[in-house]
């Protein structure tokens, strides 16, 4: 029973981790919180759903399609809502506000196109259960775990070893210095936002599969959870986002299993409000009280 809950928690948590990674990458490089991330996640979920239901594609094609759409949205987001603000001196709240604008826009657009009701994936994907002793694990859970852990490992490797990954880390360290040292920072920023949005969209499909429901409001609720993980793990900290996501997933599953299920949505922010009292820089944040700057 306990092990079962842990597996369920890890499945949920790995999707949270992927969402939070998107926030973290953008925060690390640009030092802003991208409030539109949740909505890009939601659009990704819808694109995946449409590919599966309307075009009868396989699940991996749907994931790839969602990722591509997410990357395109990320490009547009950077061009429309972020880049114009970087050109001149504006308050640090400006990007936060303009991405809130994008989020509201995308949400109501999705409401117009897809309608307010929740839609679900065809039953082909939910069937089969594997039993390992007392542990039951569905094929969906295996897909989710494999895809999200695969992405996390690939991202780690990519950031650590490739030239682009190194440029991203250098830019995250200090944008101006990286620019002086010959890093094409505006290209790095575009790549980062596209990558983060692509990851967010994949997470959308995974969450849509996990809950078997895709609806326009899921962007807000899941976006909030990603934000909670962002603070939980420490702003801009990649490891923090991964571990924080898994922790939140497990905490939520346990609160449903052993507590009050209707308060599940409040668990994430209950956690961060407590955390802000005890360890405000996040679980993996650096020692300074300024957070992961």
């Amino acid at each position, binding site marked *: 029973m306990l092990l079962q809950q842990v597996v369920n928690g890890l499945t949920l948590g790995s999707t949270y981790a992927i969402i939070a990674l998107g926030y973290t990458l953008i925060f690390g490089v640009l030092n802003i919180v991208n409030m539109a991330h949740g909505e890009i996640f939601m659009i990704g979920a819808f694109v995946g759903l449409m590919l599966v239901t309307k075009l009868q594609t396989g699940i991996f094609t749907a994931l790839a399609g969602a990722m591509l759409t997410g990357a395109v949205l990320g490009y547009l987001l950077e061009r429309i809502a972020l880049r114009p603000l970087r050109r001149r001196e504006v308050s640090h709240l400006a990007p936060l506000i303009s991405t809130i604008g994008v989020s509201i*826009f995308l949400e*109501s657009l999705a409401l117009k196109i897809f309608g307010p009701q929740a839609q679900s994936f065809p039953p082909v994907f939910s069937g089969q259960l594997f039993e390992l002793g007392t542990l039951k694990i569905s094929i969906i859970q295996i897909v989710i775990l494999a895809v999200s852990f695969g992405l996390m490992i690939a991202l780690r490797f990519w950031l650590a070893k490739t030239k682009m990954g190194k440029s991203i880390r250098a830019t995250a360290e200090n944008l101006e210095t990286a620019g002086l040292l010959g890093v094409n920072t505006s290209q790095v920023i575009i790549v980062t936002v596209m990558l983060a949005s692509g990851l967010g969209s994949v997470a959308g499909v995974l969450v849509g599969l996990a809950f078997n429901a895709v609806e326009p409001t899921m962007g807000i609720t899941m976006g909030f959870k990603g934000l909670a993980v962002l603070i939980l793990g420490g702003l801009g900290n990649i490891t923090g986002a991964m571990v924080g996501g898994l922790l939140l997933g497990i905490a939520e599953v346990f609160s449903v299993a052993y507590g009050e299920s209707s308060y599940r*949505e409040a668990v994430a922010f209950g956690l961060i409000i407590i955390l802000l009292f005890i360890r405000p820089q996040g679980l993996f944040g650096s020692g300074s009280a300024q957070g992961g700057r």
Partner: protein
Amino acid sequence: MDQWLNPYYLQIVMFMLINAMLGISIYFTLATGQLSLGNAGFMSVGAYTSALLSLKAGLPLYLSIPAGGVAACVLAAVIGIPATRLQGIYLAIATLGFGEVVRVIILNMKVTNGALGLSGIPALSVQIGKQLNSLGLGSGLGGITVQQLSNLSVIGLLALVVIFLVFFALRLRHSRLGRAFAAIKDDEHAAEVTGVDTVRYKLLAFFMSAFVAGIAGALAAHITFYIGPKDFSYHRAVEILLFAVLGGGNVIWGPLLGAGILTLLPELLRTVADYREMIYGGILVIMMIFRPQGLISEETLRLWRSKLFPAAKTEQEAVARRSAG
């Protein structure tokens, strides 16, 4: 006369004044350069506290409405104290989360009647109507029915609150407190180095904002007679933010103008009401790109002042010179 005093118009005016209060509430936190997205949450706390106190405990409205403001303030302390010690971004996220937690709690509690919300909340206008009746105005006054009269009194009351808040904000600007706020907004580190207790002032601004939002929520509850968790969602928080972003968050007139425009616009343009959220989103992005300071900024005010009162300007400069010298 009757045409102008129909309940629909009067209600729009009331909403405009309530929104003006909410605009002022976000202005207080913006005055210290912080972004609080919890105003919808504080509003709901104020609304539910006051509604429940008057519904279940029979408390008179002149006590329950301030109690709503105080309750919002208390909750502001719970999240404000840890969050304001950190970068501004923490407050934005923590308050956003706070709004969500409050919504979930309200949705699940018995006393708040869950998703159905509270109805039959004692109405401000009815209470005032009773008072008017006891004053012998039961038959109305000079062609205005008692209903219209009590609605007008509610508007008068709301307008008084708004005028008081505006006056307060204007006085604040040139006080020690207001200068501390402005210094923090300009450069937090510089302010701290020059001896401004930044944490204390940021918290104070945050409390003021929560209190005003709580009062506005309480008043709204007693005007609409019905409140539900849906009234205080994330969209509400964004709408409040939009008052300040559109009108301008640097001067008190900005949020007032923003609240006025954004209350009237959906009423005037019924056909685009379906696309309201999309338009709101677009406005936020466009304002940030082209005019991040909002429609009214300090420069606009200065320009108008010098155009309208050329004499007053020289007088002001003289005052400025004297105080500088």
